[in-house]
């Protein structure tokens, strides 16, 4: 499973390069908190510790990558604790979680700290490798103070001000956004690595991205004034990160090849619906969580026909 961590390293390294020391501390905190929580929960429940199986590290790092760059560390810590305890351990540990644990953590953070999680930090600041954003070190339960607040992310800029961003900037990550979501190309690179190692089902990201592209392309064609271009939709926000590293969580996605495609299409559909017609600028997280919830049902409905049986008899 450590291969998943390797696959996330390029995107993580870029995040540190773009946002500096604050993001480095953010990722270390969220990862360490997740591993620590896993270890302690195992010990307290009298089981052998599973902290060394890398799955907690994946959850922690993934959560960190979805957070704003100058997110207060203590909040990230809380997010990781919740991700592992509520998102994973409460369901029975690795293999039994219904939802992607990192997203459970993020959803709770979004509900608890709506301001902090939508306050963006500019990328490529001078002195980002020597100074730490003051909000990063905010004390627990204190209002964080922000020293540099960036313009909105491309998605919120579009949603609220109808400003589109150059697609090359989007693909290369020369924009603001969550720590690890900005450089789409490096995320795709990690995904290709995982597919090559046969540790990821390529059908999931392909189904998601294709659905988003086709559906938003259709809307863009209907009214280019109101709806953004499909390329913008693909490379903005957390879609790449979500499609490649979150929706592909094997435990929370269907087991069968057919089921996986339906699951991916569903996520793509929800992303477009939330982004274009919902109140939020971004919908990847909720789209994946909803699809996670449906995945056992998708799987059940699309069981392959067992050798030597007739499909009808099975459904009865």
């Amino acid at each position, binding site marked *: 499973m450590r291969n998943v961590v390797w696959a996330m390293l390029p995107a993580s390294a870029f995040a540190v390069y773009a946002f500096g020391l604050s993001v480095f501390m953010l990722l270390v905190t969220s990862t360490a908190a997740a591993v620590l929580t896993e270890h302690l929960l195992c010990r307290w429940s009298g089981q052998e510790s599973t902290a060394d199986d890398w799955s907690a590290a994946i959850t922690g790092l993934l959560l960190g990558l979805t957070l704003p760059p100058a997110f207060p560390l203590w909040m990230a810590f809380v997010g990781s604790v919740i991700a592992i305890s509520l998102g994973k351990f409460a369901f029975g540990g690795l293999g039994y979680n219904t939802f992607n644990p990192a997203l459970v953590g993020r959803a709770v953070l979004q509900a608890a700290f709506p301001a902090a999680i939508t306050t963006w930090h500019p990328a490529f600041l001078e002195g980002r490798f020597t100074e730490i954003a003051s909000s990063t070190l905010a004390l627990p339960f204190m209002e964080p103070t922000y020293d540099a607040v960036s313009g909105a992310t491309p998605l919120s800029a579009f949603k609220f001000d109808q400003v589109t961003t150059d697609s090359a900037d989007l693909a290369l990550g020369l924009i603001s956004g969550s720590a690890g979501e900005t450089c789409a190309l490096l995320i795709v690179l990690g995904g290709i690595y995982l597919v090559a190692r046969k540790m990821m089902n390529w059908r999931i990201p392909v189904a998601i991205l294709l659905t988003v592209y086709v559906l938003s392309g259709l809307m863009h064609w209907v009214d280019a004034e109101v709806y953004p271009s499909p390329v913008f939709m693909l490379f903005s926000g957390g879609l790449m990160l979500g499609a490649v590293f979150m929706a592909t969580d*094997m*435990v929370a996605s269907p*087991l069968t*090849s057919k089921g996986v495609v339906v699951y991916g299409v569903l996520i793509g559909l929800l992303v477009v619906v939330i982004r274009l017609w919902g109140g939020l600028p971004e919908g990847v997280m909720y789209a994946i969580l909803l699809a996670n919830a449906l995945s056992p049902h998708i799987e059940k409905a699309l069981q392959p*026909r*067992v*050798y030597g*049986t007739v499909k009808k008899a099975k459904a009865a």
Partner: protein
Amino acid sequence: MGLFNFGHKTFRHGIHPPENKSDTNGLPIRQFAFSPLLVLPVAQHIGAPSKIIVREGQEVMRGQLLAEAGGYVSVPLHAPVSGRVRKIANVPTAKGEMSTGIYLEAFPASGQEVLETEGIDWATATPEEILQGVQNAGIVGLGGAAFPTHVKLKVPEGKHCEVLMLNGIECEPYLTTDHRVMLEQAEDIFMGIRYLLRSTGASRAIIGIEANKKDAAEHLSGNIPEDMPVTVEVVPVKYPQGSEKMLITSLLGKEVPSGGLPIEVGVVVVNVATVAEIGRLLPHGRGIQERVVTITGPGVEKKGNYLIPIGTPLRFVLEEVGVADNVSEVYLGGPMMGMAVSNLDISITKGTSGILAFTDNEVQRADKVYPCIKCGDCLDACPLSLNPSQLGILAKFEAYDEMADNHNLMDCFECGSCSYVCPSNIPLVQYFRMSKAVVRKRAAAKKDAANV
């Protein structure tokens, strides 16, 4: 090459484990040394044990009947060598439990002559006479299952056998016995087919062979007697193609209904070496006394395909071929469906197709078992399109009835593909073997209760 009809159909899923056949597939079958003492359990086959008809101390001739069939689903047992019955007692078996058996002391200079009874002429015998002859010869499936062949060959009332299928797939890694038999015993195979075409009433026979045995396929198809409706078909290598259901799908594109036998789709499948045995024994009314066994694996010094008398103790076999000092695991059968032996005092039986010895270097002590991460690799491996992941979780919660009722547990034929691909090292096939046993036991108990 145009000679063969390359299988364009295949069964779903399956796996490709390393074949490891090259050490022995070029080695001709050789007669193995005679052990001074043979150990012959009466339960070497599936079904009722044979009934012993000799006394302790009695002298028997090679080929003489030692035990007769204990019922319809049972076969007799013949003396593999001339000698003296030293003892009738409990003997160890591969499954771990003791079984009644015969200790037969071989005469040091016993001749090669074999006791014969009245032979059966394929051209004039009735189907019933042929089936009786097959049973009298003590023949069981030599592919490893050891199911009495005459029962398998019996076409039930109201059913019709269209195709006789010879299974020359040998998809288990390491094993090369069927391969050598096809290369060296073509005449016996075709004679066997004559008997079986007559007894089953099939209008044609197909010999199915995997593409890693093209020499055998060429040899057989070049030697088909002109009057015989036999074809040889080469299919791509894929485990577990040697399962008869998978083979039928590969060759005919048909699926055997869940819970049913091949005859439901008009097919009878027989292992190719079993057919050779029928062709060799029935004309002379002999009983089966020996079988071809592949002895190989990294721990074996004199690897090869050997003709070994039934009842030869495993310890004697390993001493004769020589094994490395650091051998840590000995397998009977292939590595996928065979079983590790716990006792070297067991003996070669009619179902022993291979003996594999692995050393410390190859045997990895069971890696840690991780939880199922729902990766779905087992679903893509299962040739029956079962859901081993789900079944594995249900087995853990001992929901055996749920497994059988709603997840087709009883269709599983324990090929082990799911365990082979599992990245979490979950021993899925062991779970299923155990679960099936529980379900069978419960069904039997229910039946008993209903009868009272």
